């Protein structure tokens, strides 16, 4: 049995494969649920309700989806160009650190100034962090997968250091709780990002709106501009790009910078939308950066699809929290999420490759002398 690259992908397959993958995931999960003594249909209904229809569920799903939009976009813009920035995680931390830093430094300023400064600081810090592997890739041909991944750990340690190991301006040293356990200093009220209320209990975080605007910006950038054209050529064939006189190094830097920028704004959104202090545990525990890669892959690097997929994955993880309880262990939730993601990503292979059973002649030999 072998995999063969498809010359072209029929349109129906692009719809059928994801649906089929999810169906298979539910069948496989059903087996696990039955074995562990749970009713699959009942569980799925609860899953759906907890993600989308319970009171407040949709708002929680949007909360979970917002950071995934940013990190998903970060991965998508880089992966499209063949640059594998695995560092959205660390770039998000750096963005959060910088945004919290300026929010604390600008205490007393109005909300507009605060929010704008936080977004800019997060963007700059994320971009700067991503430019480290960007420069190494462009000028030393270093593998950006390794360097961007390694920098995630550096960023995580720096984040912990600021709160746990030093009396930094980010650390809360005055409130009574901080004596027992170190925590970040609460940001000024003006640094809290607004929420858009729709109906009774649907709250849309400001960061999500920012992410949607950025998704639109990325779409225009990649479809309509010279930069996007160069990025597309470089992603498709670096040799053709060189032949056409494109500045490949400059483009690598720009793409890595853009990727880090998106993740960094995601970090600022974490501070401003949700946490209102620099929260190392809270930022690190969900693994937004890594999940963002999955989001980008499922969205096939399409910016608007990233938003949709982030919403679905956000719902899945949000429902996971709601499902787990005395009769439903957290591990089982993780197993179900894992099966769904595994099937969805595995199914992607079928979109680009076809399965051929049996041996056939080595076709590449046709060009041998």
């Amino acid at each position, binding site marked *: 049995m072998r995999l063969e690259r498809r010359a072209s992908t029929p349109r129906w397959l692009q719809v059928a494969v994801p649906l089929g993958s999810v169906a298979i995931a539910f069948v496989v999960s059903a087996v696990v649920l039955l074995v562990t003594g749970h009713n699959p249909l009942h569980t799925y209904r609860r899953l759906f309700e907890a993600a989308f229809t319970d009171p407040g569920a949709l708002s929680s799903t949007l909360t979970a989806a917002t950071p995934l939009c940013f990190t998903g976009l970060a991965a998508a813009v880089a992966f499209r160009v063949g640059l594998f920035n695995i560092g959205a995680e660390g770039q998000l931390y750096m963005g959060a650190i910088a945004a919290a830093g300026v929010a604390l430094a600008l205490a007393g300023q109005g909300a507009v100034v605060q929010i704008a400064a936080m977004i800019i600081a997060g963007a700059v810090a994320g971009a700067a962090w991503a430019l480290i592997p960007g420069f190494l890739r462009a000028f030393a041909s270093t593998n950006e997968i390794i360097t961007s991944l390694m920098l995630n750990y550096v960023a995580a340690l720096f984040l912990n250091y600021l709160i746990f190991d030093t009396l930094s301006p980010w650390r809360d040293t005055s409130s009574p709780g901080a004596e027992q356990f170190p925590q970040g200093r609460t940001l000024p009220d003006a640094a809290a990002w607004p929420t858009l209320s729709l109906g009774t209990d649907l709250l849309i975080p400001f960061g999500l709106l920012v992410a949607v605007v950025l998704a639109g910006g990325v779409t225009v950038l990649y479809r309509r501009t*010279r930069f996007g054209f160069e990025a*597309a050529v470089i992603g498709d064939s670096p040799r053709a790009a060189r032949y056409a006189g494109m500045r490949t190094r400059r483009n690598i830097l720009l793409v890595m910078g853009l990727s880090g920028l998106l993740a960094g704004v995601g970090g600022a959104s974490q501070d401003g939308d949700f946490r209102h202090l620099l929260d190392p545990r809270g930022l690190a525990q969900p693994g937004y950066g890594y999940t963002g890669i999955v989001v980008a892959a499922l969205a096939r690097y399409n910016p608007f699809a990233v938003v949709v997929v982030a919403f679905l994955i956000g719902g899945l993880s949000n429902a996971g929290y709601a499902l787990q309880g005395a009769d439903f262990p957290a591990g089982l939730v993780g197993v179900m999420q894992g099966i769904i993601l595994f099937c969805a990503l595995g199914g992607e292979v079928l979109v680009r490759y076809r399965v051929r059973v049996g041996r056939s002649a080595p076709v590449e030999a*046709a060009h041998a002398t």
Partner: protein
Amino acid sequence: MSDRRSVTAPVAAVTLRGVTKRFPGVIANAGVDLEIHAGEVHALLGENGAGKSTLSNIVTGLYRPDEGSLELHGEPVVLRSPRDALARGVGMVHQHFRLVQPFTVAENIALGDQRDRRLVPDRAALERSVAALAEQYGLAVDPRARIWQLSVGEQQRVEILKALYRDARVLILDEPTAVLTPQEARGLFETLRAMAAHGRTIVFISHKLHEVLAVSDRITVLRGGRVVATLPTETAAPEGLAALMVGREVETGRRPERTSAPGQVVLEARELCADGDRGLPALRSVSLEVRAGEIVGVAGVAGNGQRELAEAITGIRPPTAGSVLVDGRELRAGDPRDAIARRVAHVPEDRLGTGVAPSLSIADNTVLKSYRGPDMSAGPFLRRARIVRRATELIAQYGVHAPGPETPARDLSGGNLQKVVIGREFAGEPRVLVVAAPTRGLDVGAIETVHALLRGAAARGVGILMISEDLDEILALADRVLVMYEGAIVGERSGAGADVEELGMLMAGGAR
């Protein structure tokens, strides 16, 4: 040379009878009859695509023939895999080595050897036997050295030792000198003679005349997948071999005498040097001139620096020395954008992948070089409507068969793709056109179209440097012919006065 073998009746080590091998759209070998004697060095000589490698891949079990039979040491065999062939004493030294870089020489030699099935091999004994084998054949190499520490020549010795260690009675070497310096090549020839003297059979594949004449006992010339002749080396003359190899008895369409005299020099290369992808010098001090309205053909067997020449002129490959001048002014070295701005058009050898970005549409590829200009962009934004219009015009003007401008380039046939590339390159009214393998893989109709386009461009005053392995093409189009061999220009003839056999000689390194 006659003291090489004390021949009584030669014993056949390898016999091929009527071997035919087809690949989709190509017949690689057609009814090949070949007998290789035990203990001789037998050369397989032919141009690229003559079927040499396919033939050796059949003997080493990589391919199975569609028709015909194979005998090893007089015994009919059906080989299912290279391991099968090795078990019957046929070993192969590939052009691209199959060695594990971090492993030692001895480890590489033992790798995959099924005879020693112990979990922990006796390293010392292995190293001793490798050293002994190396000494026997003068293959100086340290069994304990790691592959990455070795020169290319030493790595090749390891490949040979690998085959000898498995007790290969027949050893096939595919273009073994391609990666060697002349000194290393001479050392290899001595080794091969020594192995033949020990009764081993050597099949030496090459397209270089002097090597074949220097090392072999007998020569088989292949052309177009068929055996043209087998003859003893003593009786072979370089001219005759070149004629057999190139074999153009039919004189095809010569270029009609030109009517206008060529204009001033538009392209000049001065002592241009460049390294190949492996970092070795591939272009050795090449100087040439192309005048407006002139087609200069560059003939040569592939891999003799032609690609590096085209890339150095167009700025894709930074030269290590020398300069390129267009209209008398020097180009910025290693900057394709400068060459484009100075209207140096380039139709590259590798159309799909260099000439176009394969996944992108015809429209995108139409503006691959011109998207930066004010016609096609406004501020940071592309003018999509104009781009699509330009592509639609190109499709109509050059008769590209495609569903539309949004069709991905990779969905086009070779001929239509070449029309897109040529159409794009002609769009900027070029001064100079560097074109490589312009008709490779195209069908007859498309070849005529491309030739007509090139002639038309020359008539409009474009100076054309045309690199091609196809002598017929060069003779059909070129006003002057340069021959490249091992990175240097080894001869120049006028298009009208060029003699096929003489060009063939020059191409094979049989210098005057």
